[in-house]
């Protein structure tokens, strides 16, 4: 793919004795939203953790902006401009909302325009700026995790199941926020189980099963093909509307 910012090429990852990824191949085009879909246990989270160097791939290559990052330590990968929001959100409960955001900024601290943008996206965080993040609701923690990922300009935003366990109203809010990021041409790799969100945001899609990519293509095509959805994901769009 000529405009790929991130590529997985034959990536195998073991966790202890378990062989989780079996030669994963897919690409994330620059300026687009790529959805990584699949049933529970398909290997989506492992793929993201392998990308971030949190679990080292045993074989294959992960390249970012043309550079092989498969062997780099996690901090070096992050410093290339990749922001990661894990499934657990990774919020520091004992730190304030402000401190959680500050951690993700450069040495100069907050850039006022970026901070204003983030707080405009999630105004509730401004109201709770000085409060401990541990006291936030689940949805607010997810907003904080996403805000932390975008408080500085990054080349790639990697988000693992942001809607998991959240109320429908919060999910709608998150979809709106991601749509604004998409409109700003932010490159996003998004793992998601909520097909409605995937349909609303995705430009391209990769579907995983048993540690392999079993489908790649346009999100719109998958959204239009209920048979394919049922075969790949065990669901139909109609059931989620």
């Amino acid at each position, binding site marked *: 793919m000529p405009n790929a910012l991130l590529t997985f090429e034959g990536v195998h990852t073991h966790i202890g004795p378990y062989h989780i990824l079996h030669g994963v191949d897919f690409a994330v085009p620059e300026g687009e939203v790529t959805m990584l879909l699949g049933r529970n246990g398909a290997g989506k989270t492992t793929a993201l953790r392998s990308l971030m160097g949190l679990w080292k791939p045993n074989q294959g290559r992960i390249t970012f902006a043309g550079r092989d990052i498969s062997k780099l*330590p*996690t901090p070096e990968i*992050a410093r290339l401009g990749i922001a990661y929001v894990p499934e657990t959100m990774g919020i*520091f*409960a004992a730190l304030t909302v402000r*401190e959680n955001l*500050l951690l993700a900024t450069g040495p100069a601290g907050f850039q006022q325009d970026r901070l204003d943008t983030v707080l405009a996206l999630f105004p509730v965080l401004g109201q709770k700026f000085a409060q401990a993040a541990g006291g936030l609701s689940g949805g607010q923690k997810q907003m904080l995790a996403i805000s932390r990922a975008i408080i500085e300009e990054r080349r790639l935003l990697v988000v693992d199941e942001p809607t998991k366990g959240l109320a429908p109203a919060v999910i709608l809010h998150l979809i709106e926020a991601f749509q604004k990021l998409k409109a700003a041409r932010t490159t996003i790799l998004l793992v998601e189980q909520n097909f409605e969100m995937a349909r609303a945001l995705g430009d391209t899609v990769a579907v995983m099963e048993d540690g392999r990519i079993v489908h790649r293509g346009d999100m719109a095509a998958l959204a239009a093909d209920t048979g394919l959805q049922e075969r790949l994901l065990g669901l139909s769009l109609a059931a989620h509307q």
Partner: protein
Amino acid sequence: MNRLAPYLLLPAVMLAVMPFMSHSSWLALTVAGLAMGMMLFLMASGLTLVFGLMDVLNFAHGGFITLGAYLAVSVLGPLTGWVSSESWALNLLALLAAVLAAAIASGVAGLAFEAILIRRVYGSHLQQILITVGGLIVAGELIVALWGPQPLPLAKPAILRGSFLLFGATIETYRMAAVAVGLVVYAGMHALLNRTRIGLVVRAGVENREMVEALGYRVRRLFVGVFVAGSALAGIGGAMWAEYQELITPSIGGEMTILVFIVVIIGGLGSVSGCFTGAMLVGLAANYVGFLAPKLALGSNIALMVAILLWRPRGLFPVGGK
């Protein structure tokens, strides 16, 4: 109320024992307990951060305490003139030299210990226990080889000898000085941890190291700095404890290690505020119980730890999932 309870524990303990002793005894014991607590805090604060940041159980921490104590003897020995001088400036200079030497030597020893041994056993508590207990034994033998097995006397600077009357209670001058030094170090650590970027990263790293790395920070490098600082603080604590005891033996660090671990566990692994509160509680309990029921003094700190863990199983100020 449940969140405030740990903060109220310290004044509650102080007030609870008041009816059982005279006003002057209470004041003298409280100052003695706080002084002991401050020195314990110096020795324990590095250990709690080392555990919190990298999950490293370092039983060799007592070796840095011992090294600090012996360095104080070696520095103050040739400075006897300054130590016994009437000039408070010379007294303080001698003390400062001893404390600085203890901090530097323990910090350098910590740097070498981390690079040679600790780095190889990340992620394995069993290996950490074995290798650090072994390190403590080797450190003890090295101390004996360098300074000899016999107890060594150590004189306090003239200005810190003796005592004074405060509201009818006799207060040892050195204890007040220890309280002051401990408060200054605590305030410094508090400011460093709460007002600087490095402190922010350390606090975040204690809670979730992996996420801090995913934000681009090299936690391993930070850990080395924390390990060295923790070792240096243990050295300062050892030097101050040696001055307080006025007689040191090669087992001084090993003896303090038990109390230091009790402090860290009571406070909550990885919590500096918890470590401070735990140290004060241990110091106060040792002095109050020693006065009220001397036969129980030996087990008072273990009993305190058991009681607190029954109440709050993860310590007074638990951090993250620790």
